[in-house]
Structures are given as structure tokens and as C-alpha cells.
């Protein structure tokens, strides 16, 4: 873009220095804490962390909820994105606006709204009781289900946006062309839509998975201390126990999980493509 590369470099330098000095270095120091025991390098802190059954539960729960939220977002997201891209432009804009609206509302407000909806005397339980499905209200809050619902609502728009933009880039008549060549809807999805929107799925999947894994407010409010996730555990370790070593371990695990998820999804995408 620049005729002189030096100019380009000079322009990125301030941002690079800023990022390095105020982000990379502190993070590096923090994370390296977890590899040091009494001044020597060690992975002992990790072994300690995973030797606790409670920590393993939290780790697996985080992984499971992240994967579930990403998976369900993908399924619902494909359906929603397919409908959105087949709409005429004006109503497409409107529906798309509706999908992205939650992103403009504070996650705290949204999560508190779930407290109202899912609570003992909340909207959902009132309906269930009035319909005679149950006599005593269900305990939905402070369960994995509540956290799952909250995270799904929080992050699904990201999946839908990724998939909509991926679908908009598909050749205009690819789906009807496949239909005419004899493909049923399942085959159309598998051989054409999925194949052509893989990158959108990878981006959306990574965003939703890492987002769910690293969300704090939603699991904190809807899960409480009963349904700890890595992020809430991290916070607890720092504020309650002043245990920075565990906190660093958790932070490192979260980073590794995010990167692995992205790599894994990319690998899946390219493996199918080169077939």
C-alpha cells in the first residue's frame, strides 16, 4: 500500500509499542508465573491444578458448555442465516438489525433479564405451572442450563453474522443449481452450503466458543458459585484466595483452549476442502 515500506512500519510502530509494552509483556510475566515454583521453571502448578477433582470438573464444564453453545449456535445460525439471505433486501436489513440488536445491549442487563425470566416466579415457570406441566416451579437458575441459555443468547448473534456474510458470498445460484442437479436439501446443505461457508463457520465457531469460555458475567450471575466455569473460578482464585499462581494457570489454559479451538476448526475446514 505504501510506496516506502519504512513509512508503513513507522505508522504501525506506535500501536506496536503500545501493545507490546502494555499488553504482551505484562501477560508474558503473568503467565510465566505459572511456570515458576520457588524461582525455578516447572509445570508443577499445572499438575497441581489438574489433580484437583473440582478443577477438572470446572475445566470440563467450560469445555462442554463452550462446545455446546458453539454447536447449537451453528445449527440455529445456519437456519437463521439461510432465511435472512433469502429475504428481499429491505426486510433482510430489518431482520439482521433485530439479530444484532442484543449486541448493543449491555451483557449485564441482558443477563439480569434472564434472572427475571428464568427465576422461581419468573415468566417460564409461570407458564409451566399455569399449563399444569408442573406443580412446583423448576429450578432453572444456578444450573448449567441457565448458563447455557445465557451464553447462547449472548453469542449466537456472532455466529449468525459470520454465517450470513459467508452465505452472501456464495455464488448466487449455487443452491438452485444443486437442487436441479438432483440434490435433496440435506445434500444441498452438506455438499454446497456447508462447503462454501466453512470459513464463516470457523470464524463464528471460534468467536462463540472462546466468547463462551471467557465470559464472566453470565456464568457468574446465572451459574453463581454452584456452576463455576474457568473464568469465574479465575476471579474467585484472585479475589477470594489471592492465589495468583492458579489464576495464571487458568489464564494460560484459556489461551491455549482458544488457540486450539481455532486451529482445530481451521484444520477441519481445510481437510474437507482439499478432499
Amino acid at each position, binding site marked *: 500500500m505504501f510506496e516506502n515500506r519504512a513509512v508503513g512500519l513507522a505508522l504501525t510502530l506506535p500501536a506496536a509499542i503500545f501493545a507490546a509494552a502494555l499488553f504482551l509483556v505484562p501477560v508474558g510475566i503473568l503467565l510465566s508465573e505459572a511456570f515458576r515454583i520457588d524461582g525455578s521453571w516447572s509445570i508443577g502448578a499445572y499438575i497441581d491444578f489438574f489433580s484437583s477433582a473440582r478443577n477438572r470438573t470446572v475445566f470440563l464444564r467450560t469445555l462442554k458448555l463452550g462446545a455446546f453453545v458453539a454447536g447449537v449456535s451453528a445449527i440455529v445460525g445456519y437456519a437463521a442465516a439461510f432465511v435472512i439471505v433469502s429475504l428481499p433486501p429491505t426486510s433482510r436489513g430489518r431482520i439482521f438489525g433485530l439479530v444484532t440488536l442484543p449486541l448493543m445491549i449491555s451483557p449485564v442487563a441482558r443477563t439480569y433479564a434472564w434472572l427475571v425470566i428464568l427465576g422461581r416466579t419468573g415468566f417460564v415457570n409461570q407458564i409451566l405451572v399455569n399449563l399444569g406441566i408442573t406443580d412446583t416451579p423448576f429450578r432453572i437458575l444456578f444450573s448449567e442450563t441457565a448458563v447455557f441459555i445465557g451464553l447462547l443468547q449472548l453469542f449466537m448473534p456472532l455466529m449468525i453474522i459470520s454465517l450470513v456474510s459467508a452465505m452472501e458470498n456464495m*455464488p*448466487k*445460484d*449455487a443452491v*438452485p*443449481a*444443486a*437442487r*436441479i*442437479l*438432483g*440434490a*435433496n436439501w440435506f*445434500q444441498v446443505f452438506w*455438499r*454446497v452450503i456447508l*462447503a*462454501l461457508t466453512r470459513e464463516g463457520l470457523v470464524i463464528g465457531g471460534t468467536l462463540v466458543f472462546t466468547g463462551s469460555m471467557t465470559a464472566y458475567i453470565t456464568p457468574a450471575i446465572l451459574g453463581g458459585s454452584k456452576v463455576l466455569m474457568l473464568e469465574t473460578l479465575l476471579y474467585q482464585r484472585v479475589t477470594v484466595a489471592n492465589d495468583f499462581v492458579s489464576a495464571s494457570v487458568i489464564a494460560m489454559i484459556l489461551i491455549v483452549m482458544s488457540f486450539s479451538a481455532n486451529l482445530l476448526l481451521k484444520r477441519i475446514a481445510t481437510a474437507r*476442502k482439499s478432499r
Partner: protein
Amino acid sequence: MSDFVLLENLTLAYGKTIAVEALNLSINQGELITLLGPSGCGKTTTMRAIAGLMPLRGGKVWIDGQDVSRIPPSKRQVGLVFQSYALFPHLSVFENVAFGLRLRSEPNLKQAVMDGLEMVGLAEFADRHPTDLSGGQQQRVALARSVVMKPKVLLLDEPLSNLDARLRLDMRTELQRLQKDTGITMVFVTHDQSEALALADKIVLMRDGAIEQIGTPEQIYSAPVSGFAADFVGFETILPDGKGGGQAWRPGAVVLGQGPYNGTVRGASFAGERREYVLDSKIGVVKADVSVAHPAFEIGQTVDFDLPPETAVQLARVD
């Protein structure tokens, strides 16, 4: 076989907008038929309805003696070459052509695909990706992809409009050869009258969602039934007779420089061997072209002209 494809009172709509109303059309087996008309006349919509991509608001579609109105596109055994080609960018040329054959587990898949690519002269491009090909080559892949399925009807949406002049001629010849070799029934949608005249066995001229005129290229070209049809094939000067009918002339038939009428030159353009003029006159707008051997007229000049009855075509309606 007559009535091989039969559209019976076909009515199609987008929401509240009726695109095609109560259209009846019969296509014989092995015929190359053209749906001709300006954009918005319903020709593409009609074609999509034959393919099953457009829900019917009313009427029926029959193919090969079977009512296919409720049969999904995947089971209609029609082929469609899209204007945008609609190749699958994630698949090689070979896999694009193989797409439909794989779905029905064709036993001789490789042979069938290579035959198809051979037919359009692209056998050596089998391993390439569609994005590596030129527009003309992509279209031939799309054609091969449809033809290898041996469809009962092959539909082509504006197949020549995205090609440059030379490729257009090649493709036209190729389509004619293909039709002759395979005897396949072809329905070809275009807004270009010269394409329709050159290719079709039968032309269906459409206007506002209905058929204006059906005929051989000769009939359409020399005996238009209405002002619309006449204008579409180049009879650009229309003189109503006051009783609904009238006469029409091609620009070359209008005599300039003498005659009982006169008009003011509004536009003049040089077109090589001919000069083209647009005149405003009491009887309406007159379009004329004359040999460059004639002295040129200036814009604003008043010119006498004649509309000789012997070069006119008689119109039953002028609308």
C-alpha cells in the same frame, strides 16, 4: 412428440406482484424454443417455473406426459444453465460436472464426465478450478454439467449475454450443434432478438407476463402481430390507421428527402455504412436510416419523408 413440455394456465407471482398470468404454451420434443422479451416480461420466471424453482400460483406444468407441478426441482430431470453459471467454486471442473452424476451414483462416472468435458472442448481443464477459467469456459462447464445428466429439457438463461461478440458466435454454433447431436429439447431465454432469430426453431415473444406472439423466426421477423412485436424486431416507425390497427416500417424502409410528410431531425448518428436519424413529425416519431452516400441532414433541419406502403408490414394492433 408434441406437448412434450406443456404449460397450462400458468400463473406466477412474487408476493402480490403477478409476474406471469394464465400462460399456455406447448413445446415439442427436440425443439429449440426461445422465450424472447424485454426484462420484466416474465420469461425468466417462466423458465424457473419449468425447473421447479418457482412455486406456481396457478396452473400446471407438464413434462413428458407427467404433471410435475408439485415435483421438486431435484426430481424433474431438467437441466438449467444459469446466467451466472452458478459453478461450485470449491470443486474442480471435473467435480462440478460430476456433481449430479455422483448424487445418482452413475456407474460410469469418470467416462461420462470426460465425455461431457470433451463435448465442450474442455477435457484438459478437468483438474482446474472454475475460478481459473474465463467466462466463456465457465459457461461451457456449466453446460457440460447440465448435459451429462441427460435432462428431458435443457433450460438456458441468457447464455450468450455475458460473452463478448466472438465467443457469442462460437457458443451459438456450439448450442446448435449440441441440439442437433443430442436431440435434446431446449428452452432458451433471451432479451436479444438477433440471438433468438439465429437460434430458435420457434420463438415465443413475451410481454408483461403473457405471450404476445408465437412463431418461427421468419414469422416473428417479417409478420409481427402488434406494435410491440413490430418494435421488438425493428419496425420502429409505426403509423396507426385510427381503427386499432396500423402499419410499421423498418428504419431502412423510410425514404428521406422527399415525400408527403415532413419532420424535424431530433437526433442523427453515424453508423458506418448508414446514417441513423430520429425525426419528430405530426404522425409521431420516425426512425430512419439512409446510406452515407446521401447528403447528411443537420439536427433541427426540417426534412420531407415518405413511408412507402409496399415496404410496410400490416399490424392487427398497434399497441
